[in-house]
């Protein structure tokens, strides 16, 4: 089984978000970048398939040279090889089109993406990729098993989950549940050393058109201070929720 895991290079979840250049660009100054958490669950599941079912795992990122440490981390976690498509990812449609080109050349059986990245939260790349390739697609995927050419999936739905089956090739938009938090791996020294020599192929982008453009950013307006209510005066809280906030 050939698996492609698409990863995004995103600010660490604890990052403070600031903008620069007249609020038109994300300020990367002092920001630590990590593998997008939704993608990391998928990567860890892919490594499970590698260890248990002999799968070959390729990781892919669309981004500039500065994103290579993130790909190397994925290699250190256990991916066999990596591809970087050398272009700045500014539009989900174009990113999906770039990945689709690579998939057409390589015939992956399974393509695992995170259901959304934690920077732009577009949530569009996996579905677009599946549509461009004409592959089966399961979004918000929280469980994934493969036997031969058949996959069984669980999808998170409001108030529960939906179990489905389909044939490969398959694209999933993954999230926590593909593996649990405790199953995530911190690369060990041996992994880090071997990752240095694993193949990382840099590909130049195909000519996909952007269909959107981020024109500016804005930070939320500062919040007014919290109103503290005395623990012995809960009537005041009821009154505030009813008369002021009008939510009760």
């Amino acid at each position: 089984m050939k698996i492609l895991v698409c990863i995004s290079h995103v600010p660490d979840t604890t990052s403070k978000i600031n903008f620069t250049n007249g609020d038109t660009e994300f300020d990367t100054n002092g920001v630590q970048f990590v593998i997008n958490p939704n993608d990391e669950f998928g990567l860890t599941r892919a490594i499970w398939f590698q260890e248990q079912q002999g799968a070959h795992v390729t990781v892919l990122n669309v981004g500039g040279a500065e994103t290579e440490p993130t790909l190397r981390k994925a290699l250190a976690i256990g991916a066999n090889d990596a591809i970087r498509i050398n272009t700045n990812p500014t539009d989900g449609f174009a990113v999906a089109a770039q990945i689709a080109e690579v998939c057409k050349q390589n015939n992956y059986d399974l393509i695992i993406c995170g259901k959304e990245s934690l920077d732009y939260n577009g949530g569009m790349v996996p579905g677009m990729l599946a549509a461009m390739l004409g592959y089966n697609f399961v979004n918000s995927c929280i469980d994934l098993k493969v036997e031969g050419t058949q996959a069984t999936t669980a999808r998170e739905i409001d108030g529960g989950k939906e179990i489905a089956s389909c044939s490969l090739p398959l694209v999933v938009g993954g999230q926590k549940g593909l593996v649990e938090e405790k199953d995530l791996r911190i690369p060990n020294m041996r992994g880090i050393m071997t990752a240095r020599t694993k193949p990382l192929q840099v590909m130049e982008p195909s000519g996909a058109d952007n269909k959107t453009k981020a024109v500016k950013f804005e930070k939320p307006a500062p919040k007014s201070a919290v109103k503290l209510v005395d623990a012995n005066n809960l009537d005041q809280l009821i009154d505030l929720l009813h008369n002021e906030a009008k939510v009760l």
Partner: protein
Amino acid sequence: MSVLVYAESNDGKLKKVALEAASYAKKVADMLQTTVTAVTVNANDTDVLGNYGVSKVLKVNASWNDFNANAVAKILHQAAVKENSSVVILPGTTDAMYLAPIATVALQASFASNVVALPESTTPFVVKRTAFSNKAFNFTQLDAAVKVLCIAKNAFGLHEDAVAISTEDFSVEVSASDLGVKVQNVEKTTGKVTIADAEVVVSGGRGLKGPENWGMLEELAQTLGAATACSKPVSDLGWRPHSEHVGQTGKPVATNLYIAIGISGAIQHIAGINSSKVKVVINSDPEAPFFKVADYGIVGDAFDIVPRLTQKIKEFKMQNA
């Protein structure tokens, strides 16, 4: 040339988010000086859409029961072609977010999710959306001829604007390859308010000390007609199911009222719940970061406060029933 809206339903009944999406579509249609057409799949109560500005309903009576993203995407695609729509509006639900990117590819459209306000302008077409997990807003310009938008829940609200409504049956041929993903089984908890549908969410953190103490939280939730949720450590510890984990890597919450009990307010948690309108925190530590983002706070022992608060709310509901 009308604005198209996907009016999502569940068990034959339109969801509230469908009416919210319709309200949004009507305002966009006003900006573009056109009308709104809705697409429904297996919904019965479609006439109510007229109250929210929908002039025409394309009603699909599908032969399948389980949701299928490819099939609904195809319906939306063909409806958009038939109506010559340049703007297609969907809610931001799990199912809509599943199908919208597929429809976007079919329409060679521009797509924006988590949209929180009306377009800033229509030429160029620019919308405001949340990004960086609610830590910021992003203004996105959609350049393709067709624009597909998913509207964030509870951001725009319901706006009544009654118009005359007509209904026509609409059918779309769905091929076997569209139905490649076959639903085997749906496991749903019944009788409980889900986080996605809830107007109020009561959420607990590690401050509650153990899963055995969730009874008082559930009672408060029941009194308020609320869904229960929890912080990440609580779900990681296995005190509560993962489906209740809210935050940056869990479920997003955009309710009218969010009550956080014994949750300190890590930045990842706040990111996930920040779209909620009113936030109340109950925590024994006055230095807990949650107090910085909450609207109302009580410093004190949850085990003392929560049962008394439940009682007070019960009394309030009785008086105002």
